[in-house]
């Protein structure tokens, strides 16, 4: 078989969002990858500029459609840091509950999707049925299933409505009943093991060198949980484990995500038991005179970092570093040498969120649009 190139995306059944990988093949094996991004770049950081702090909170949430609340919390954390504001305990606990619910739904979404990649349609359906229960709770608490608009500076927009706690108890009990069976199927099914084990290996050294975050790093045994390293909201007062796996392959990363489901459920239950009674407080939007600050949170995919410069309550500069942006650098290294059939598994094991990742776009005007390291140094550093 002579060498040829196979396009993987931008439109492909195994991709949720558009990226383009031109796979150079030698027979059944990948010898080179050309990656092309930028299909869903919207210039969110530019949209921040010149907007009120209040509006930026909502725009920040629109960076992503899966981990939307993580962006909102990172933004809130940055702004509250500038103000030196600390939220009341009840608010902290409520925010933690919503953040963990989001982690639950994101990881369940991944589990269904990862198994769909290897043709396990039924697990996709069954996992997503469980995800619906989480979304129902999120809708009851925040009013939205995808975008929640839940945070205010120093407070949240809605307290728990009537009947919400019963719904949470009921749905979480159902999740606790159904999820272990599905996870067991993942761990025991021989075909699943054959497809996920020893695929997309990342050594511990590589994980540190490439600066991986979230389950990608934890699957290679690198501690990277922001909830432990730099606790925020109520994570200080709650007992939970940082899940680490040593394998470094797609299976280890999947295992990290599936084990985190149980941890998230436990965190939500602890938060619910710790909730103090509803305070009768009057809240006013605090204006920010000027300042700069950053906030980082543990999004479902890893560390989410936001940086803001504010003058007279107007954001003049925003910068976001999303988890997928940190992780995507290693994709090429992992794909080279793999079989074509492993491509969907490797890409899925990233849990890529392309909408988050599209932070820059190179506009080609016929000039050279990339630099080698030495050229970069010569031009910008010396």
């Amino acid at each position: 078989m002579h060498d040829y190139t196979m396009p993987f995306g931008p439109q492909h059944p195994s991709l949720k969002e558009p990226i383009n990988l031109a796979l150079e093949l030698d027979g059944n094996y990948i010898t080179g990858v050309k990656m092309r991004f930028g299909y869903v770049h919207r210039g969110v950081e530019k949209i921040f500029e010149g907007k009120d702090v209040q509006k930026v909170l909502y725009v920040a949430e629109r960076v992503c459609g899966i981990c939307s609340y993580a962006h909102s919390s990172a933004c809130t954390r940055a702004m509250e840091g500038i103000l030196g504001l600390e939220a009341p305990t009840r608010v902290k606990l409520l925010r933690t509950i919503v953040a963990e619910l989001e982690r639950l739904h994101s990881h369940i979404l991944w589990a269904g999707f990862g198994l769909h990649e290897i043709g396990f349609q039924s697990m996709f359906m069954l996992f997503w049925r469980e995800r619906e229960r989480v979304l129902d709770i999120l809708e009851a608490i925040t009013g939205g299933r995808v975008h929640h608009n839940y945070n205010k500076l120093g407070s949240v927009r809605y307290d728990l409505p009537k009947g919400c706690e019963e719904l949470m108890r009921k749905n979480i009990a159902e999740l606790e009943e159904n999820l272990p069976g599905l996870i067991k199927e993942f761990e025991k099914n021989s075909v699943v093991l054959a497809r996920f084990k020893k695929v997309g290996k990342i050594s511990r050294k590589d994980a540190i060198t490439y600066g991986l975050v979230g389950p990608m790093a934890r699957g290679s045994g690198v501690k990277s949980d922001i909830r432990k390293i730099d606790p925020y909201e109520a994570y200080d007062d709650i007992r939970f484990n940082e899940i680490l796996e040593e394998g470094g392959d797609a299976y280890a990363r999947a295992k990290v995500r599936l084990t985190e489901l149980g941890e998230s459920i436990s965190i939500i239950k602890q938060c619910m038991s710790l909730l103090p009674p509803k305070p009768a407080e009057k809240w006013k939007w605090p204006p920010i005179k000027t300042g700069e600050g950053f906030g980082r949170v543990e999004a479902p995919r890893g560390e989410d970092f936001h940086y803001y410069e504010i003058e007279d309550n107007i954001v003049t500069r925003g910068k976001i570093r999303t988890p997928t942006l940190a992780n995507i650098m290693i994709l090429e290294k992992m794909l080279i040498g793999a079989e074509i059939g492993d491509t969907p598994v490797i890409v899925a094991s990233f849990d890529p969120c392309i909408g988050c990742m599209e932070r820059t776009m190179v506009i080609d005007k016929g000039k050279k649009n990339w630099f080698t390291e030495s050229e970069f140094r010569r031009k910008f550093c010396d």
Partner: protein
Amino acid sequence: MIEWLVFLAVPFIAIILDGAYRIVVARMQNRQGPPLLQTFYDLDKLWGKKPFALQADPFFRAAPLLYFIATYAMFLFVPIGLVGFNYDFIFLIYLTILGSAFYVLAGVSSDSPYSIVASMREMILMVCYEITLALGIFTMIIASGATAFSGLVGNPVLVAPFAGLALIVVVLTETHTTPFDTASAETEVLAGAETEYPGKGLFFVELTRALIKLFYAVLLPFMFFGGNIVAIVVGVPVVYFLLAYSKVTTPRYRVDQAWWVLFVVLLVAMAEFVRVSLGVFV
């Protein structure tokens, strides 16, 4: 006369059973599923499309029709021997290989890299499963002591149970059911060999897929229970259920893993063939 009417009705039976199969799969997956006649609606829509193909390659145009004819012709031998003759099972084995070969041809004659990769995978797997199918059928025929399909009597599956198991695995591969649907893995090679086909070409490929399911659903009980008509009527839904069950409960192997599994099955079928033909432990 009645036999020929049944032969003509085969595509319609295949379409209805395919619809039932889709409903069963959907219900197992916690879904509502399509209407019973969904396959018919799909085919109707495809037939109504104007012919449009970027490639003028004659092989590309002819392959789906040839694939359909080779598959439809298999019903001349099983279950009713419309053109039965001595050693007709050898002819049937030729037809099954021909059908797969035309499917591969359809992929290779497309210019799409997905089709070419899918055809390559089909060829890799064919090496194992077509030989296993031939050995399975030979074993059953020898176990029954017949020289043609019409002479098949008794319950050969009780004499050669391992050949029966090998045939079941072959049927999963032939019908592109998980875990052996590597050649049409949608997340890896899109629609497989038929990726580039529009309208009528796709019509023939889809219809042939439904026909293949029905053929192997008939072949298994036919071979296992020696052409017993009651066994066939009961067996066809059972085989369809088996296919649905396999599709629902397993993901798919990568091509090298699938090849190894099929190779082991081939070795089992060989051992069974030697055992039965030498008359050991029979």
